[in-house]
C-alpha cells in the first residue's frame, strides 16, 4: 500500500506513511487517511521516509491536509523527506507553512 495511516489510542495523533511516489494518483487514499480525524488538536505526522518522488500536486494535497488540520486546530509535521523531496519542499518554501523535520 502506498499510503498507510494509523491513529493512536487517544486518537490525538495520526501517523500517515507515504511510500514510493507521492503525486496526484494518491489523492483519494491520502484524503481518506485524514478526513475522518476530527478530534480537536490532532497532530498529523506525515512520514515521507519511504517516498522517493513528490510533485506539485502533492504540495497541493499537503495544503488540503493543512486546511483540515487548521479547521480542527491541529498540527502537521512532515518527517524525514529524502533529498529530492526536501528540495521540492524547499523550492516551495513550505517550512513557512508547516513543520518539517529532516
Amino acid at each position: 500500500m502506498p499510503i498507510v495511516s494509523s491513529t493512536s489510542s487517544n486518537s490525538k495523533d495520526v501517523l500517515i506513511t507515504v511510500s514510493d511516489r507521492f503525486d496526484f494518483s494518491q489523492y483519494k487514499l491520502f484524503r481518506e487517511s485524514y478526513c475522518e480525524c476530527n478530534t480537536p488538536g490532532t497532530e498529523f505526522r506525515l512520514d515521507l521516509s519511504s517516498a522517493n518522488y513528490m510533485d506539485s500536486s502533492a504540495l497541493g494535497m499537503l495544503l488540503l491536509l493543512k486546511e483540515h488540520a487548521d479547521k480542527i486546530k491541529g498540527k502537521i509535521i512532515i518527517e524525514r523527506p529524502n533529498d529530492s523531496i526536501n528540495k521540492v519542499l524547499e523550492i516551495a518554501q513550505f517550512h513557512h507553512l508547516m513543520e518539517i523535520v529532516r
Partner: protein
Amino acid sequence: MMMQSQNRDILIIDSNQDNVERLTQIISEEGFAVSSAQNGMQGLVKFYQHKPDLVLIDFHAEGMSAIETCRQIKALATNVFVPVLMISTYLDDEQISTCVEAGADDIVFRPFSLAIFRSKIYAMFRIANLYSKLYTLTSERQNDEELAEQLFSTVVEKGNVAKEHISIFKRSAETFSGDVQLTALCPNGDINVLLGDFTGHGLSSAIGAIPLADTFRAMTDKGYSPLEIIKQINRKMHQLLPTHMFLAMTMVSLSVNEQIAYIWNAGMEDSFVFDSKTGELRQRIGSFHPPLGISANLLLDIRPEVIPLTKDDRIILYSDGIVEARNAQGDFFGEQRFIEATQQGFVDNDVKGHIIAALEVFCEDLPQDDDISLVDINCDVSLYQALFPVAESEKEKILNSTIEDEFTGRWSWQMALMGEKLATVNPIPIIINQINEMEGPGDQWHGLYTVLTELYVNALDHGVLDLDSSLKNSPEGFAQYFQKKEERLAVLGNGYIKIKLEYTSTDQGGTLDIMMIDSGIGFEFTPWVEELGDIELAKNDFSGRGIKLVTELCQKLSYHENGSAVKATYTWNK
C-alpha cells in the same frame, strides 16, 4: 430495439458463392445494403470504394488470409470504428486469439441461427454508434479547446512588450498551458517580467492566467511597485484558486534608470544571472517565498534580490518542466545540462535553440509530461531606453518654443502623508491617476512619473528617514540601505511629506509645478546640485542618478529650506 438500417452498408468477404448468397439474402431482408468480394484482396478494394459500416470475413476466404485481411481493414479505418465479424465452422484457441489480435470484434460459428446472426449484427452496430458518438464528442471538445486556447493566449500574451530583447519560449503538455509569461512597461520606462507556473497543467491550471495577466498589466501600467503588484496577485489568487492550487512565480523588475534588476522568486526553480560574454553563472536566485495564492497575505519580510547589471548580463528564468523532463531511463534533464546548454547558447547567440535542442536529444521521442517555459532577458538597459520617449528631445522642444502661450486652464491639487501612512501608501500612482482623470492619458506622463517618483523617494529616504545615499555606492551597501530603510519605516512617528501640484495648460501643452515638503532636517543641497551639472556620474555610483534624471526631465529644479522643500517645473508640448 431495432436501429434504423437504411444507411448501413455491409461488406461480405467469402469465396463460397452459396454462403455469399445466403448472407446477402438475410442482410437485405433487414434493410441493409450489401456488397461482396470473393477474396481478401478484392475485399480491401471494395472496402476502400464502399466504405462499409460492418465487414463479415469468412475465415477460409481465398487469397490473402482472413487474419491479414482483417488487420489491413482495421488499419484502413483510422478515424472510424468499423466492426469486423469473423465467420467459421471451427477455430482452435490459438486461431481465435489471433483473430482478436488482428482486430476482429466477434466470431460467429457455423451453423448459426438467423436470430443469433441478426443480433450479432445489431450489437456490433450499437457499439459502432457509441464509438462514433465518442469520436464526435472528442473532436468537438478538441476543436473547442483549441479555439479557446487561441483566444486565451491572445488575451494573456498580446500585451507583451520588448519581444526582441526578452525572448520567450513555451511548449505545453496539453492544449492549455499552466505556465504564463508576461512582460510590461512601467510608466517610468522600467520593465516588469513575470514567469508563472500554476499547479498541474491543462485547462484547470489555466483558469488563473487571465486574472493574473490583467492584474500584472493594469498595475504595472499605473506605476505600482513590483511588491504591490505581487501582493495584489497573491490576494487575487488566494480568492480565486481552490486550496490545493497555487501559483509559483518569479518576477523581475528591470530598472532601466538604475541598471539594477529586482528579483522575487516565490516557489520557482533558481533563476540565473549569466555574463553572456564569459558564460559565467554570476548569481542564482533561489525561491525565498511560498508560491502565491496559498495564504491571504505575503510573508512580512519579503524583499527582492537586488542585482546590479552590466550590459552583457542575461537573466534566465524557466519552469520546472525543463529540468524535470525525463528520458527513457527515468533520469532528469537536470540543472547541469540546462546550464551547459545555456552557456553553449551564448557562444552561438542562440540560447533558446540550444536548450530546446539539448532537451529534445535527451528525451528523444518521449511525450512531454509538463509545460515547459523559458525566458531569456537581455540586461543591456540601453536597448529598453529606445522603447521610451527620449527625455532630451522633449526638453529641446520646450527650449525652442515661444513662451507667450495663452493660459487655457488651471488646477491645483495636494495631499499630505503622515506617520505610518508613509510606510503603506505610495502616492505616485494616485497622483498619476488624478492627472490621467483630469488631463487624459498621454506619453508626457511617463517623464512626469519618473520626476515624481525620484522627488518622492528622495524626500522619504533622505528627508524623513535621513538615510545616507553614499551607502548605495557599493552593491553590498545596497542591501544595508534597504534594511535601514525598513527599520526606520517601522518607527516613523511624526514624519510627513506634503505634495502640491499646480497645473497650467497652454496652447502648446502644459506646465506642472511640483512642490514637495518633508519633515526632515534638510541637507547640503547647493554644492550637490551644482556638482551634478558638470560631473559625469561614475559607472558604479548608484546614488545621485535619480536627481540627475530629474534635472534632465524638468525645466527648473530648486531646493529650499535647507533642502527639505523642493520645487520642480515640468513642461511639455503636445
